[in-house]
């Protein structure tokens, strides 16, 4: 499996650390309520299809990237830098 780092280009999966669903980029407001925070912290869908995941290019440029990947076809359709996108 190879991931398209926006800075380094296609790189081997061994260079990356897997964080999980990119929901971490969408932090709810302080007063969003228990439901929203419960979802943000704990609840994840087990999606068959396109997922957005956070990966850290730890053995490379050090960037956090958001990779779009299909869990059914294993197609990696893109990646973008996380820097500057978090709210």
């Amino acid at each position, binding site marked *: 499996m190879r991931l398209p780092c926006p800075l380094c280009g296609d790189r081997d999966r061994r*260079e990356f650390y897997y964080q999980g669903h990119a929901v971490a980029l969408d932090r709810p407001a302080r007063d969003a309520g228990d439901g929203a925070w419960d979802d943000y912290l704990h609840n994840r869908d087990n999606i068959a299809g396109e997922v957005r995941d956070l990966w850290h290019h*730890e053995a*490379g440029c050090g960037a956090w990237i958001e990779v779009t990947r299909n869990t059914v076809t294993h197609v990696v359709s893109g990646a973008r*830098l996380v820097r500057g996108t978090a709210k």
Partner: protein
Amino acid sequence: MARLIANTPCAGLLPKTIGSVSLSEVDAGVVTLVAPFNGQQKAVSDALKSAIGVGFVAPNRCVGTSPRVMWCGMGQALVMGVDCPDLPAQCVDHSDAWAIVRIDGAGADAVLARLTPIDLRASVFKKGHTARTLIGHMTGGITRLGAQSFEVMVMRSMAATLVHELVQAAENMDARAGLSA
């Protein structure tokens, strides 16, 4: 008073020649890690260019010989072989922090291919290209200097492991060449 003896990271380990490949240590002299402050990359590049003749580099690139500027991660570059000028950036002295080994000779790319997952083909990884990647289990950098000439660098604490890995890979490739001869 204690007499301190300054040693290079690979002192006593290199140089070595194994088959067609030779390994030697590179003394990069003064090295400074430069990480431009937010929005200051162009200002840093301009200041570097006027002070040392080489600007801040694009990702995966290494420019100049001495001095030279080598990309080394997102928003970071190493300024090598010269005192770093005043810059609107976070500058950290990395002199003596890196073990840098030069690998030359026919098959140097094949030796490195045993240790790193990146694509080293000359059509993809050209002279002046550098990559942050894995070397064995270590995080480090690989830079192409010529057709069969590369520089491999890891933090100094891993110097002996780097030399061990390179020597092992070179011996394996040499032994394999001997079999088919």
